[in-house]
Every structure is written in structure tokens, then in C-alpha cells.
């Protein structure tokens, strides 16, 4: 019997996302990624004796913004707490975080998985500081002769978003993560660069017999950094827990770690070894009071969120699929909207963006935001097709030229003499000479072989280096031969 026929999986997620403020949460150091080891540091983020934290107001703004986008309540009174544990990457051996009074509570988002819509609750979201990074001389800590600590990341602001245990399948989990990342990108509170570790996931998984109402014992697997790791980790953990339960044993409540290389989860700490974090209110920071005015000010800066945007695009005539693709990333949707402002045909625009533009960007591994072709230039190119100046085919090569040179399409057309020939007089002369040079094809056509006209059109296009207006050529040729 398959696992899914016997057990129901219950999953909740903790997502740690780096907020993209310019400076750290409690000091003025830059949050920039990279940089020589221990160059983005100061007495505060190094936890030097006597140094004190000062809360970066922008971090609060970002947390409020994310909270609003995730339909959360923004707490009027919240505070910071110290989470005490010893680890070398933690410069004070406590992390300043929020414990019982987080900034965002009771939110959620709607997902669509396997054709079903579902609401996933978000219990809370709280602000905290990131830790530094251990740098080992060897592959792992156990094979290293020495380790150093890089505190550049220490104090980078994080938002930890904790979901309800509302997900029942892996597709639901992935849909939740995609939607969450999409919203965070849209609100521009995070650039969500997974490859740089700016988003990290803790996955809580438990199984229970189908029909059971109480929850099974869960495990928490910490610090996953890609969607595919989440998927593989869950597949493994579900199978493992099912084997344990099938054998009539109990799942052990514990914290586990994901071994990417071996594709397995391993015990990190048992419940007995779990840290006692000895949380208590951070005495170096005043409680955080957020009045309605502050929240409303942030609400005004919220962008149109993906769902609303998708609906608007569909109203413009885009299919549900196209609207979803275009609104997947905010940068893409912004590109679309900007082009739409000067080119009204939404459907054609969407086809070009999803087709040739995306292909060019993908081949060159370029992000939409960095595209050398501006939205305005694309709109201009499409207008040239509509005016008959360019054929669709030529337009594609102009687009490539635009990508490599960044020039306006009209300039490329002028420089290369690519304007389409729509002058009937000029075309008639060429048509006459092609007819004269290909009597056999003319005869074939007149004998009813329609395919022959294609050959003649091809000859005319060749003679005009592809610049003849193909519609007009067809029309004129047919008139001549009738």
C-alpha cells in the first residue's frame, strides 16, 4: 500500500528571509553580500563589550510591508527578546529576536495546488538578526584543522515567517513557498536570492493515519536553501517516518539536518538535547510601539500584488496561463505594464515577452531587471510591425540587434535599411521580373498547383532581401496571375 493511502502528511514551515535594507538591523554596517571576510562589521555587530544596538527603522517598515502583503495584523505593541545559546557565529552568544510578541500575527495566503485553491495560515512573522558564517579550512567542520568566523552577515535583518501546519502534500508546500517568495519579491522587502542564502527554510513534517484528527509526532529539518531541497527532504522524511510507523515504532521528536549529497536527513539534536534558549526581553531596546498612522503610511506603499495583477491582465484579454506567467515575477510584470503604456495590444505584447524576449534573456542568463532592451523599446518595435514597416520575421532579428546593442529599433531599421517594402510600384516591377524568369511556376499555378505561388513569393522575398511586405506581395501576385 502506498504511503499516501495509509498516512496523511502534515507540514508547517518556518521561512527565514533576509530583508533588503541597505544597513543592518542594529548598526550602520552595509548588508551587501560578499566582501572580504569581516569588513562589513563594527563594534555593535561584533558584539564588542559595551556596544549597544539601535533598531533600524527601515527594518520595521519592511516587516510591516511584508506583514500587510501576507494579510497579517500588525501588532501595536511588540518587543525584542534575547535568544540565548552558544555558537561561534553568534557574536554575543545570544540572538536578538522576537519571542512572545512578534510584529506580525494571524496572516496567510492563498495557494493553488493540483487545481485546488487553499488558504494557508501564517501564525506569525518576527524580526531578528542573522548570525555570521563559519568558514572551515576543510570540507566540513570535522575534517578541518581550523575554522574562522566571518561576521559580515551578522546583524543582517531577517523576517522569520511561521506558517500554520496547514499543508498536506508536497505540491501544496511548494506552492506555498513559491507564492510566499513571489509576494516578498513583489513587495520588494527581499530580493529572495536563494543561491546567496537570502531565504532559508525549516520544514516540520509529521504523519498520521488517514482519518486521524490528532497530530503525529513531528520532526523539524533545518536550514534548507532551495525548493528542490525542500521537495527531496520531504520525500525522504515522509518515507522514513512511514517506515518507522509501519514497523510499529514511534517517530522521535527531534531536530534533523538535510544532507544534500546523500539525499537523506540526519538527527541533529533530540528533544532532550534541545536548547533551552532562556528567552527574556532585550533590555537594551525599548518596546516597539507601532501606531495606526505608521501602518497606513506603509500600506500606501504596497504594490499591486500578484493575484490582483493577474486578474487585471486577464481582463485585458490575456489567458489565465499567460497572465500567470507574466505576473510570476514582479520585474516581468512591471516590464509588461511599462510596455503596455505605449503599446496597447496586450495579447501580442504578452506573446513577445513570453517568447522571444524571455528566450533572449534566458540564453544570456540575464534578469528582466537588467534587460538591455527596455520595455519602451519593445513597444516601439511592435508598433513598427503594426505600421507595416517591419515584418514579424525581420522584427525578430531587430530584437536580437536591440539586445546586443541596446539601440532603439527605429535606429537599427534606418542604419541597416531594413524597412519593409510596401510601395506597390516598386513591388510590381520585381513581381514582373520574377514572373518573367519563372514561366514554369506560373504555368503550374495556373494549372491549379497552389503550392507554386509559395515558390514565387519566396523568389520575390529573396529579391528584396526579405524586406517586401509579404501580405502585399501575395495580394499583388495573385492579381497579376489571375
Amino acid at each position, binding site marked *: 500500500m502506498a504511503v499516501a493511502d495509509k498516512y496523511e502528511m502534515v507540514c508547517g514551515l518556518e521561512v527565514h528571509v533576509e530583508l533588503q535594507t541597505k544597513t543592518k538591523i542594529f548598526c550602520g554596517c552595509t548588508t551587501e553580500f560578499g566582501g572580504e571576510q569581516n569588513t562589513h562589521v563594527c*563594534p555593535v555587530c*561584533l*558584539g*564588542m*563589550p*559595551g*556596544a*549597544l*544596538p*539601535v*533598531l533600524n527603522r527601515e527594518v520595521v517598515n519592511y516587516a510591516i510591508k511584508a506583514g500587510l502583503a501576507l494579510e497579517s495584523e500588525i501588532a501595536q505593541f511588540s518587543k525584542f527578546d*534575547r535568544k*540565548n545559546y*552558544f555558537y*561561534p557565529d553568534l*557574536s*554575543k*552568544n*545570544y540572538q536578538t529576536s522576537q519571542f512572545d510578541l512578534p510584529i506580525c500575527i494571524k496572516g496567510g495566503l492563498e495557494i493553488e495546488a493540483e487545481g485546488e485553491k487553499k488558504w494557508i495560515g501564517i501564525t506569525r512573522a518576527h524580526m531578528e538578526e542573522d548570525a555570521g558564517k563559519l568558514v572551515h579550512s576543510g570540507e566540513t567542520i570535522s575534517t578541518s584543522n581550523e*575554522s574562522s*568566523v566571518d561576521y559580515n552577515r551578522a546583524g543582517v535583518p531577517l523576517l522569520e515567517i511561521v506558517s500554520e501546519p496547514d499543508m498536506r502534500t508536497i505540491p501544496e508546500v511548494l506552492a506555498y513557498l513559491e507564492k510566499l517568495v513571489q509576494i516578498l519579491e513583489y513587495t520588494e522587502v527581499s530580493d529572495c536570492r536563494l543561491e546567496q542564502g537570502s531565504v532559508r527554510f525549516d520544514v516540520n513534517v509529521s504523519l498520521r493515519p488517514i482519518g486521524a484528527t490528532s497530530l503525529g509526532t513531528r520532526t523539524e529539518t533545518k536550514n534548507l536553501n532551495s525548493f528542490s531541497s525542500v521537495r527531496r527532504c520531504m520525500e525522504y522524511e515522509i518515507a522514513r517516518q512511514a517506515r518507522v510507523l509501519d514497523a510499529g515504532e514511534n517517530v522521535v521528536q527531534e531536530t534533523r539536518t538535510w544532507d544534500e549529497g546523500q539525499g537523506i536527513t540526519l538527527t541533529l539534536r533530540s528533544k532532550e538535547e534541545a536548547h*533551552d534558549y*532562556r*528567552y*527574556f526581553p532585550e*533590555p*537594551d*531596546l*525599548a518596546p516597539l510601539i507601532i501606531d495606526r498612522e505608521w501602518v497606513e503610511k506603509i500600506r500606501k506603499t504596497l504594490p499591486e500584488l500578484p493575484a490582483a495583477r493577474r486578474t487585471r491582465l486577464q481582463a485585458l484579454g490575456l489567458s489565465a496561463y499567460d497572465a500567470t506567467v507574466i505576473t510570476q515575477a514582479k520585474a516581468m510584470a512591471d516590464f509588461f505594464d511599462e510596455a503596455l503604456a505605449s503599446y496597447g495590444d496586450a495579447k501580442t505584447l504578452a506573446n513577445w515577452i513570453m517568447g522571444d524576449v524571455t528566450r533572449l534573456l534566458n540564453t544570456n542568463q540575464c534578469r528582466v531587471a537588467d534587460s538591455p532592451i527596455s520595455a519602451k523599446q519593445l513597444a516601439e518595435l511592435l508598433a513598427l510591425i503594426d505600421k507595416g514597416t517591419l515584418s514579424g520575421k525581420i522584427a525578430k532579428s531587430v530584437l536580437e540587434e536591440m539586445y546586443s546593442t541596446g539601440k532603439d529599433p527605429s535606429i537599427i531599421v534606418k542604419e541597416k535599411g531594413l524597412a519593409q517594402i510596401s510601395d506597390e510600384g516598386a513591388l510590381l516591377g520585381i513581381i514582373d521580373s520574377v514572373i518573367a524568369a519563372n514561366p514554369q511556376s506560373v504555368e503550374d499555378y495556373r494549372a491549379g498547383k497552389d503550392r507554386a505561388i509559395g515558390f514565387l513569393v519566396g523568389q520575390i522575398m529573396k529579391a528584396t532581401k526579405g524586406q517586401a511586405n509579404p501580405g502585399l506581395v501575395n495580394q499583388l501576385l495573385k492579381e497579376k496571375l489571375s
Partner: protein
Amino acid sequence: MGIEKSVSELHELLAHKDMSSTELTKAYIERIQAVDPKLKAYLTVLEDQALAQAAEVDRRIAQGEVLGALEGIPMALKDNLCTEGVRTSCASKMLENFIPPYNATVTDRLRTAGTILLGKVNMDEFAMGSSTENSYFAKTRNPWDLECVPGGSSGGAAVAVAADEAAFALGSDTGGSIRQPAAFCGVVGMKPTYGAVSRYGLIAFASSLDQIGPLTKTVRDNALVMNAIAGYDRLDSTSVPFEKPDYTEFLVNNIRGLKIGIPKEYYGEGIDPDVAKGIQAGIQTLINLGAEVAECSLPHTEYAIPAYYLIATAEASSNLARYDGVRYGYRAEAEDVLGMFKKTRSEGFGQEVKRRIMLGTYALSSGYYDAYYLKAQKVRTLIKQDFDKAFERFDVLLSPTAPTAAFKFGEKSANPLAMYLSDITTVPINLAGIPAISIPAGFVNGLPIGMQFMGKALDEGTLYRAAYTFEQNTYYHTLKPQLSGEVLTCGSR
């Protein structure tokens, strides 16, 4: 020589060019060289740096610049106040070689005011103690009786001022650490309102209780130093944005009509009858000067000590977690990281510090938090309310600063609980976050005793007025400890 004079007197000498800052600084350094081998107030003496700073001030005097009140005045800082480029040890093996790359805000402000930093003075390790016996480096002696402790934790600061080894000093006060040594050594010590003086660069003991304040020879000097160090600082999120007054404006010799409350709980058992008698005489003086004195009650006082030792140790256990050998300070070699943490902390901290870290860790532990830390915070609120209520009727409250005069070395160090209980008259003030000042109020068996005025939050001014009036009508502050020839030539011993 000048070193025995008050800051305000020294200022006149400097301003009238009767003496240069260099001469004055040299005189202090000679004094330190003469008496400190015995008294051991100083952990670090900055002779060259101090003389260079003094020369700079002298150049300004020569150019005819108007001198600020503290300009050219030599002083000392408790060794838990960060000084850029100068070792700041907290009197701990853990920070024996720690040289901060930054200044505390108060260090900067005193530098801006033109003071001369003579050096860093001794204290109980990480400010934990009431006798300075917990210093890793040295035992500081009370200049009034070399067999007695100077009080603590700012013992070095109090001795430096009392023995004319500095014109003034800054200490820190978490549960009495400025006021009690000031009382034991016969000087003036102010614990300002929580948030009135920036804590940036003060190496934390208990963040919600720590405050920096001045130890001086006179009340006027104290107000002058407060003028320089108090005021909002954006680097300290608990700093209060308030309009800082000129504290010297409160120095009027008049307390007619001032309402003084006498909290009866501060005169309970444990108070030395001679101390009580001395304070009683002080109260009579105040009455004679026109103050309206009446008894009052702060009913939750008896819970202050347990609440204090839970909150202070809980915060300390977290504040001191950063000393692990990874980034700075003492590091013990071990097989792995956890071993290094354990060995570093076992070897780097002294007994009392370890005791408090353990107490605090326990108080915050899962399952105990509500019963200890949370309960203590509730007690703290009640204690605050006690004061609020008392201040509806009174301008200031008055008590002995400490239950006894200075005690002998070793007398209480074997019994930590007895040592903790001697803080009964000082810790409630820190829990409430209000200001309090200790001033010389007489002698018991040749040892000074202190009288404490407590005031409303940010009302240091009224404390200065009461203290100044008392001082101007008594002679205690004019008496100096007579250091014997033995001390002055102690190199031979």
C-alpha cells in the same frame, strides 16, 4: 600643590593661570606614584597621554581661550568604561588584554569637555561586588583605614577621589556601586536617573539597572561633571530624550519648605545603630535648615534584594555570554569549540562572576522563568509604585547610603548572602530607575558614613539642592583621610 582642591577651585587656578594643567597633571601623577602602590586605586596610569592632553589644554589657555568648567581637570574612569586604545579590563582576567577600538559616550564627552584622563581605576570584576575585593588584579584599600574595603564596585573611583589621586572620577552603579563606595570613602556619588547618561561603551553588567555617574569631592563638582556627561545619546536606545538643565543652577543653600520623606523600611535591622544615629543627626540638621521631614513607607522594600539579584544576574548571564574566547579577550586552548568555551569561561571569570552567571542562567531556565524572572519584574513594578506614591507627598527621600561604615577585608567575602544584604538601601533605587546621591554625613569610629537622597526621575536638580545645602552647613566633606608615612613610602614594605 592643588590636588586636594575641588574641580571648581582648580578651574579658577587654571583660568587665572596660577597653575598650568601640566603642573596639575604632574602633581596628580606624583601623588599616584606616592600612594597608589599601597592604595591600589589604579589599574592603568596614562602618564604620557595625560601630560600630552594637559599640554594641549595649556596651549589653549596660552592663546587666551575661555576655559570650560572641566577643561584641564585630571580625572579617572572606572575600568568598565571603554577608552579607545587604552586597556579596559573590567578588572577581569577575561579582558586583561582588551583594548577597545572605540570610546564610551561618556569618555568622548569628557574628552570634548577638555578633561585629562589620568587612568583607569579598579573595581569588582564586571562590577559585581560591594567591596572591590572581587578584582582579578588588586585589592584597593580604603584611605581612611587601610584594613578596610573601599566599598564597591566603584572602589577604585572612590579611593582615587578621596585620596587626591584624581580631581573626580566616573563610576557605574547597578545596585549601589557608586553610592556605597562614595559613602565608605567620604566623597559625593551620584547615581543618575536610568537613561540620563548614555550607557554606550559601559561594559554591561545588568543592562536595565546600570547607570554611569560622577564621584566627586563636592556637590558642586558633581553637578559640573553631570553637566558634561548627561543628555540624550542616539547610540543608547534606552537613553531618555530630555532637556538637560544646567545642574549648577540648583546649587542654592536653601531647603526651606523642602519636603523630605524618611522611608521607615530603610532603618530596619541590620542598620548599624551608630550609622542610624549619624543619619538622625543629619536629619536634625535638615530640619533646622527649614526642611519639612516626615516618616513614610516603601512597603515592598523587603523584596527588593531578591528581585534585584534575580534580574541583575539574569541579565548578566546573557550580557557576559559574549566572553567566549572567539573574538577578543582571554582564550584557553582546547580540543574543540565547546571545550574552548568552557575552559575559557572557567579560567577567565572569577568566583563571584561565575556564581552570578549560574544564578542568572538558572533564573531564566525553562520552567523557572515565571517563578523567578517574571515574578521579580512584577516586584520591580511594585517597588516603582512605592516610590511614585511617596513622591506624591515628598520632594526627596532620605536614608543612610549603606547600613554600616566600611568593613574589614574578608569580613563579608566568605558569605555572599551577607554581602548582598548590605545593598538593601541602594538596590531599590536602581530597580525604580530613579536618581540618588550619597554625600558625607559624619563618621563612625573614624570611618565616613554616607547619607542618601533619592529623587523623582530626572529630578537630579532637587537632589543637588538638598545635598548642597546639607554640605554647606556641615564640615564632613572638608575632612581628609590622613595617609600615614607608611603609605607614602610604602615601596619599602
